[in-house]
């Protein structure tokens, strides 16, 4: 399981570092470093086998039925990337500790950074492509957090948003590509995908799949025309830039190219799309980099250019080019990370990054200057440094392309041109910053940074030199195993020597070095020209235009739909529903009436139905007299429960009956605080306008109900009916479904009920309402609020009502009843006490706090479910047995405990709602018989 632990460790470290930051910045840094090293330790366990050529695959079953497992894979390519992520990550942890000022929250930085590190590790170690994509998106999200670390700065927020928008869009495209790829191969696992190269390339969906995957890779790796997010991401703290833009984030794109290289490359589409994109990005990045006055801006465009170089190498598609691509990934990571760190030191020490002001730093920090110069030389491709070696391989591959096509010579020419500019901007980085006269108006006087801030740069620069001089002894084993991981086959012959004789590649290097020097010497007219065209050809303009357009469009649409008038929105809603229904209707040539035999119509039934409909219409006609309308509404509800009685649904009838009582009491209480009548303010046209859709909706519902009712039924009911007694131990199938077969549903529903009650409680908290002193006909309220006869009777009735509810609860498994109904009956019985005796009197005699009741109910229901889980059955499987009492056979089922939970939640929620409204009610008109601390008793 070492790979799983390797990926998880940074995530755990992230939480720990965020928490430990309160103990001091050093603690957070130590934790981050330790997490990185621990992840490295897990990785090292598999690394030895990988060097021997093995591919390690670890699998954890996740959703076996859907064919989804968590699968991790370690081969050469994954190992190389994991090493870079952890190695450079560790150096960044050290560097960042000294980079940030005491005001910056270090815990947050280390938390975000470790999140990002874990996401990257997951990405490069994934065997399953869907899983890879999840980590891919996680890197986008965590890099968003890192780039916007200084979220008080607008440029940081904008840069982070842009990076997220562009890479997020790419992630979406990649999702499409991966789904197509999985469709083609029949599996999302890399082992299967990598073995199906010929099938993939021959498939008709190859091109769309390729394009989608490439959009994903190109957005992540900042390839033209998606490159613009990278320079804007430079608003991030420099440790972030050094990490994201050297070894990790932007390398995820080229990692994907390398990962899928064996199956996607080798076609003309691949060659042109990838190769050309790489070439354009290479040249464009190199040229723009020279003209950036911002130190990090120069490095950003140089990064774009180098990513173009790597992309182009993979695009060329020969095994040797792929090997060179992997080699340059390593080299670029080392020299670019050290250059970013050096730029961070300079920024840290001088207070600015403007190269027109930073000059002559050699006199202040010669040691840092030496380190930066070595790294810059590696970036320029100067012999004896590592950048030279991979650039030579690259030049040789470019020459190889020249012979393949007409105008093929343009490729080495363009590549050399880019090389010239690479030398020129490297030269500028060195000469402008460290020489070139005296500093101009610096905010601070620079000096050498703290010792430990330089160590990470020293390590990386040492690697640049060692690899540059002794490639075969240092990088060769890692490069070989990584390239073998990319190619999934034998390695091409290669020779990592400094001297290859007078090859064309060497001459190209010479031209680049000499030409670069010349361009830098003649830079002044070029800078003048660049200042004139500055900002005129920026790809981010297209992005800005797109974003503004989308925002304008959405604002326009929501302004049309959301006018702030509920009535109009509801009307639109009803009309759309009608339209949708009608569209479905017209498409079908099926008759409205089905063949099912109808039930005979009796006189009593017809009269009752007619009465119900007339009452409903009366509610609408009389809805201005609110009290009358409410009473009529209650009658309609009772009518509904009669329907349930007639059509074999005793449980529903009982539920509807008790809910109706509670609802009417609730609405009566609420009505006291609302106007007693509705003013007539709608015009005749308005009424007609509302009546039409209402009648149409009613007609539609009736037609639909008729169409269903007259058709024969195919249902899964038989299964429930057959299994209710043997499987659930109850004869009331409805109750068994509720507490057993679909118990999970019921658990969710009582949770909703509990939440609604708590929400209402929160809304009523502190609510001050005043009711009217007189009724709507101007009469005073009756001074006898609690008539003695009613009070006494209701008190007598309470034990009987509670007995009934317990009976209903206990018999629910076998006869109509159960937790819902019993709970409602109990609630009604108690509410009757409140009504008859007054809230204050009753409140003083009953346990006031109802929250524990709801909580205990939910707990009992959940624990019942967990109990079956402990015993090895699925959640909420019920068990039952029969015990013999002197009174007869008595059944005991675990479902009854669940039903008890339901009962408690229903009682608690119903009472909580009504009693708290009642308390508001009492508070609004204090009367003689009210205890002064009526509201206090509840707290």
């Amino acid at each position, binding site marked *: 399981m070492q790979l799983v632990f390797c990926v998880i460790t940074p995530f755990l470290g992230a939480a720990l570092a965020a928490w430990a930051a309160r103990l001091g910045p050093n603690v957070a840094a130590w934790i981050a470093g330790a997490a990185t090293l621990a992840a490295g330790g897990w990785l090292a366990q598999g690394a030895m086998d990988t060097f021997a050529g093995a591919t390690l695959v670890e699998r954890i079953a996740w959703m076996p039925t859907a064919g989804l497992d968590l699968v991790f894979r370690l081969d050469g390519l994954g190992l190389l990337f994991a090493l870079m992520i952890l190695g450079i990550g560790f150096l960044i942890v050290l560097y960042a500790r000294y980079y940030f000022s005491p005001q910056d929250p270090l815990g947050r930085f280390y938390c975000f950074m470790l999140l990002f590190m874990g996401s990257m590790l997951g990405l490069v170690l994934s065997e399953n492509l869907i899983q890879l994509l999840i980590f891919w998106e996680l890197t986008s999200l965590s890099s968003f957090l890192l780039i916007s670390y200084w979220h008080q700065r607008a440029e940081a927020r904008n840069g982070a948003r842009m990076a997220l928008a562009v890479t997020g869009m790419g992630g979406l495209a990649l999702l499409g590509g991966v789904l197509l790829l999985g469709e083609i191969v029949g599996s999302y696992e890399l082992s299967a995908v990598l073995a199906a190269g010929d099938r993939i390339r021959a498939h008709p969906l190859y091109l769309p799949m390729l394009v989608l995957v490439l959009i994903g890779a190109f957005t992540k790796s900042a390839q033209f025309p998606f490159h613009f997010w990278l320079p804007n991401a430079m608003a991030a703290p420099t440790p972030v830039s050094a990490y994201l833009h050297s070894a990790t984030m932007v390398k995820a794109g080229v990692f994907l190219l390398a990962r899928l290289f064996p199956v996607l490359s080798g076609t003309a589409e691949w060659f042109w799309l990838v190769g050309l994109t790489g070439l354009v990005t290479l040249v464009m990045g190199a040229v723009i980099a020279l003209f950036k006055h911002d130190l990090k801006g120069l490095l950003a465009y140089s990064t774009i250019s180098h990513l173009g170089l790597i992309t182009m190498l993979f695009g060329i598609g020969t095994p040797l080019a792929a090997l060179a691509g992997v080699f340059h990934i390593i080299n670029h990571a080392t020299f670019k990370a050290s250059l970013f760190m050096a730029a961070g030191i300079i920024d840290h020490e001088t207070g600015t990054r403007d190269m027109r002001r930073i000059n002559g730093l050699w006199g202040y920090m010669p040691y840092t200057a030496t380190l930066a110069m070595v790294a810059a030389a590696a970036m320029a491709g100067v012999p004896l440094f590592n950048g030279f070696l991979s650039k030579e391989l690259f030049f040789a591959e470019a020459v190889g392309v020249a012979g393949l096509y007409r105008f093929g010579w343009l490729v080495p020419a363009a590549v050399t041109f880019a090389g010239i500019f690479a030398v020129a901007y490297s030269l500028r980085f060195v000469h402008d910053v460290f020489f070139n006269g005296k500093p101009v108006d610096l905010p601070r006087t620079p000096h050498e940074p703290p010792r430990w801030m330089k160590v990470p740069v020293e390590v990386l620069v040492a690697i640049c030199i060692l690899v540059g001089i002794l490639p075969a002894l240092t990088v060769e084993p890692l490069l070989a195993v990584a390239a073998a991981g990319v190619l999934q086959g034998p390695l091409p012959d290669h020779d990592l020597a400094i001297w290859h004789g007078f090859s064309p590649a060497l001459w190209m290097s010479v031209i680049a070095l000499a030409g670069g020097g010349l361009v830098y010497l003649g830079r002044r007219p070029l800078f003048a020209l660049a200042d004139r065209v500055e900002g005129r050809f920026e790809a981010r303009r297209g992005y800005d235009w797109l974003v503004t357009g989308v925002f304008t469009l959405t604002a326009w649409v929501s302004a049309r739909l959301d006018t*702030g008038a509920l*009535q109009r929105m*509801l009307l639109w809603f009803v009309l759309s529903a009608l339209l949708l229904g009608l569209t479905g209707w017209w498409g079908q040539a099926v008759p409205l009436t089905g063949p099912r035999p109808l*039930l005979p119509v009796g006189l009593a*039934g017809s009269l009752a*139905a007619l009465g119900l*409909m007339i009452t*409903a*219409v009366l509610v609408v006609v009389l*809805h201005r007299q609110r009290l009358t309308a409410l009473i009529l509404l209650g009658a309609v509800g009772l009518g509904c429960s009669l*329907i*349930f009685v007639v059509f*074999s649904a*005793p*449980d*529903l009838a009982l539920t*509807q009956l008790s*809910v109706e009582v*509670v609802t009417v009491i609730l*609405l009566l209480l*609420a*009505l006291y*605080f*609302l106007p007693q009548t509705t003013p007539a303010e*709608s015009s005749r046209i308005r009424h007609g306008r*509302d*009546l039409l859709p209402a009648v149409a*909706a*009613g007609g*539609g519902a*009736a037609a*639909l*109900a*008729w169409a*269903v*009712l007259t058709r024969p039924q195919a*249902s*899964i*009911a038989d299964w*429930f*009916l057959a299994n*209710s*007694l043997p499987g659930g131990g109850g*004869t*009331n*199938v*409805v109750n068994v479904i509720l507490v057993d077969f679909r118990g999970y549903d019921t658990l969710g*529903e009582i949770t*909703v*009920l509990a939440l609604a009650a708590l*929400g*209402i409680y929160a*809304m*009523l908290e502190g609510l*001050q309402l005043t009711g009217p002193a007189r009724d709507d006909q101007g009469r005073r309220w009756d001074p006898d609020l609690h008539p003695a006869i009613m009070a006494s009777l209701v008190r007598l009735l309470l034990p009987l009502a509670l007995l009934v509810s317990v009976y209903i609860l206990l018999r629910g498994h076998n*006869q109509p009843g159960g937790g*819902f109904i019993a709970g409602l009956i109990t609630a009604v019985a108690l509410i009757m006490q409140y009504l008859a005796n007054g809230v204050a009197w009753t409140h003083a005699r009953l346990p006031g706090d109802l929250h524990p009741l709801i909580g205990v109910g939910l707990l009992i229901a959940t624990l019942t479910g967990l109990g079956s889980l402990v015993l090895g059955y699925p959640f909420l499987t019920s068990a039952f047995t029969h015990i013999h009492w002197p009174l007869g056979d008595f059944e005991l089922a675990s479902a009854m405990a669940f039903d008890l939970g339901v009962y408690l939640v229903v009682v608690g*929620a*119903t009472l909580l*709602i009504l009693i708290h409204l009642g308390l508001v009610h009492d508070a609004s008109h204090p009367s003689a018989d009210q205890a002064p601390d009526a509201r206090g008793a509840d707290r």
Partner: protein
Amino acid sequence: MEALLALIIGTLTACGVYLILRARTFPVVLGLTFLSYAVNLFLFAMGRLVVGRPPLIDPSAAAYTDPLPQALVLTAIVIGFAMTAFVIMLALKARAELGNDHVDGMHEP
């Protein structure tokens, strides 16, 4: 009988839709209650209409009605109550905060 139930569902829906299009909160709450009735009956009707065969297992019973829609509707009734309660409290809160009971809360009381 099927036709009667279909008519009842239609009537309840029509009344509900008309009432939710009113401008004051109380009729809208009544309308929502109507719609709950209609939806519950409609869901119940998906099990078709059967007289005198409740889903209580009994060796002497020849057949049963479909218990599944009943189970679904039972919880729907209770949740419907919670929803009605929530909406009417919102209406009270709006009345207390805004001083009127218009659904958009911006007209004079």
